[in-house]
């Protein structure tokens, strides 16, 4: 036995060290804060398909992404090896499509903006790039009939897009599909302004051809702080489209000599400066300007065919407003007190439309105002309000505050 002592010692040391380490590593998420969605008012079933992606960190050295659903929090390190190596951060919607339609989804872009689904079809849009420069040479649309598994492809040969062009939304309905592309024409590096158009391509399934694209010019918008939004009146039968551009701006302080404003003062001075609102008639291609004759706006969240919907935050709380394009009148749909918390316009994630419901995720970095709000754009009422709550105080072992971000929300089937 003594002859084998070195071999035995090395083997025992190796086995003990690695075993203890992996037993600990397996339990590491037990020390993490977990979140859940607590319904405050409204129909709880509305969040059944909500998926929120977030991440948390406690110092420069720790970072852990997670997914939050109505069933609770799942950390990345709790998922399988295959899930971890197959682009964990990709959209849940794309993950589901990949699971259900493996052949169709093979080799495709994982950006959820490139996809649209109807009861019968999956529609995918993407660019085909030129071999000689970085400009998109073609726009390709692929459709899959879910019932027959029949796949069709259509291509626009010369979309006249520049290098920086992005598919922002694909809207599929029974007869066809719209592909909305944000196209950067020119950048003025001295003023940091971009000249932007939104090009809208329409493809009709029965004809099998594309119409001439509708080009909506949004003029020049700043490279930073900008917001561009795009809404249709009815996703199942779109007739009109609204394209908005603007920025989150800051009011000049009354006393400029007082130096840099504090974080709180900066947030209070935020306002939404909408530079362009265009209404597009999808049948005729006519583009008309909408001049909002009110400063009671906010982050644009939806369009119900008659009114533009905004969410505004001010000292009194959060307010959903509806601006009637015809009568130019603003009505406040709902007001929610915020109990003295600081909420910035940057704390709102991209609004999500699911039929007539508009989901807003408020992710305030400070305080406990992390919530999900759902409004019905037709009835103009708040149908759900839920808070995202931690299961314990959000702090690490040293008592330092942990930074938690809820980055993105999705509605999955």
């Amino acid at each position, binding site marked *: 036995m003594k*002859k*084998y002592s*070195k*071999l035995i010692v*090395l*083997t025992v*040391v*190796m*086995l*003990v*060290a*690695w075993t*203890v*380490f*992996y037993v*600990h*590593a*397996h339990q*590491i998420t037990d*020390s993490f804060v977990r979140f859940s969605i607590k319904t405050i008012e409204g129909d709880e079933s509305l969040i059944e398909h909500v998926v929120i992606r977030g991440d948390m960190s406690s*110092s*420069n*050295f*720790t*970072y852990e992404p997670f997914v939050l659903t109505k069933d609770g929090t799942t950390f990345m*390190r709790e998922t*399988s*090896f*295959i899930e*971890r*190596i*197959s*682009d964990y951060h990709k959209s849940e919607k794309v993950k589901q499509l*990949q699971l259900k339609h*493996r052949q169709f989804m*093979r*080799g495709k872009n994982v950006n959820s903006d490139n996809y649209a689904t109807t009861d019968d079809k999956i529609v995918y849009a993407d660019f085909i790039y030129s071999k000689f420069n970085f400009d998109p040479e073609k726009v390709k649309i692929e459709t899959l009939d879910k019932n027959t598994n029949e796949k069709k492809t259509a291509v626009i040969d010369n979309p006249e897009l520049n290098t920086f062009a992005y598919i922002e939304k694909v809207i599929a309905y029974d007869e066809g599909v719209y592909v909305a592309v944000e196209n950067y024409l020119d950048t003025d590096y001295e003023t940091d302004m971009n000249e932007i158009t939104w090009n809208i391509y329409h493809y009709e399934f029965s004809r099998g051809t594309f119409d001439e694209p509708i080009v909506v010019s949004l003029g020049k918008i700043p490279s930073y702080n900008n917001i561009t939004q795009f809404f249709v009146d009815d996703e199942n039968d779109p007739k009109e489209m609204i394209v908005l551009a603007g920025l989150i701006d800051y009011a000049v302080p009354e006393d400029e000599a007082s130096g840099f404003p504090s974080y709180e003062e900066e947030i209070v001075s935020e306002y939404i400066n909408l530079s362009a609102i265009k209404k597009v008639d999808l049948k005729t291609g006519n583009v008309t300007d909408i001049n909002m004759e009110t400063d009671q706006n906010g982050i644009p969240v939806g369009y119900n065919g008659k009114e533009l919907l905004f969410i505004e935050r001010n000292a009194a709380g959060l307010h959903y407003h509806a601006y009637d394009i015809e009568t130019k009148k603003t009505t406040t749909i709902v007001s929610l007190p915020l109990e003295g918390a600081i909420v910035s316009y940057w704390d709102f994630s991209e609004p999500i439309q699911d039929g007539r419901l508009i989901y807003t995720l408020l992710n305030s970095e400070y305080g406990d105002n992390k919530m999900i709000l759902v409004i019905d754009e037709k009835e103009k009422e708040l149908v759900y309000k839920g808070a995202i709550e931690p299961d314990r105080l959000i702090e*690490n*072992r*040293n008592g330092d505050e942990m930074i938690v971000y809820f980055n993105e929300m999705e509605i999955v089937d």
Partner: protein
Amino acid sequence: MKNYLKLLNFEINRFSKLYFLMLAIIFSVQLISVFYHIFSYLAFVKMETKGGRMTPEQFLAEHFPFGLSNVFYTRGFLIPILIGVVGLILYVFFIWYRDWMARNTFIYRLLMLPTSRMNIFYAKLSAIMLFVLTTVGIQLIFLVLYKKIIEWFIPVVYRDDLSITMAVVTSPYLNTIVPAHLSSFFVAYGLGLAAVIVVFTAILFERSFQLVGILYGLLYAVFSFVLFSLPLVVQLLMFETLYLYADEMFILMTAIVIGIIVVSLLTSRYLLNHKVSV
């Protein structure tokens, strides 16, 4: 099995002096580095807070607290690990060549043993894997010591008490040798095992065919690497994107690695039994 264990024990004993010397160098350099950084940090804290210029809270608002993670990013910690890695890579070659190159051609005796010659191969392979895994295992044990030292010297107010496991799994450098998940451990060290087997086969080519054997060995290693990378390269060349899903890629690449291991072992057996000469 008994013969294999005897040979493995023999390989361990032969390298043990050098191995323990290497461990002594790695961990004494790391230990000195840990002390150096602890005392540098304490001196910095003292300088900044001297005469009540700063409270601990004010200091921590501007600077990081001190913890294991601070040590992980220092040269005094990483270079010894690199020394260990290089040492063990060299040992992959040394473990074969010393049998030929030593004053007495020891390989004679090894090849004449009344046991399968592949036992020599497996013993050398196991010795290397055991040394690698034990070195990293001892590194994990030493982290416990470093953490204790930090706790002894750094006042709690300035300390980042991140657990060892958390500090390891969130460190990009240590994560390379200590994968955060058991599944990743098997993948990473499985690939390492396959690489060592391929290198062993290449060495046996060289030992079997001398000068031209170097070419055969190199070609074999390159061929194995190309075969392993083929699924990735073909997809990117043909489709300019990953056409296969991650699970399919994993199955395919696992099959390729197993194939490479089997072919390497069969080739090595053939070379050891029929071609290797003293």
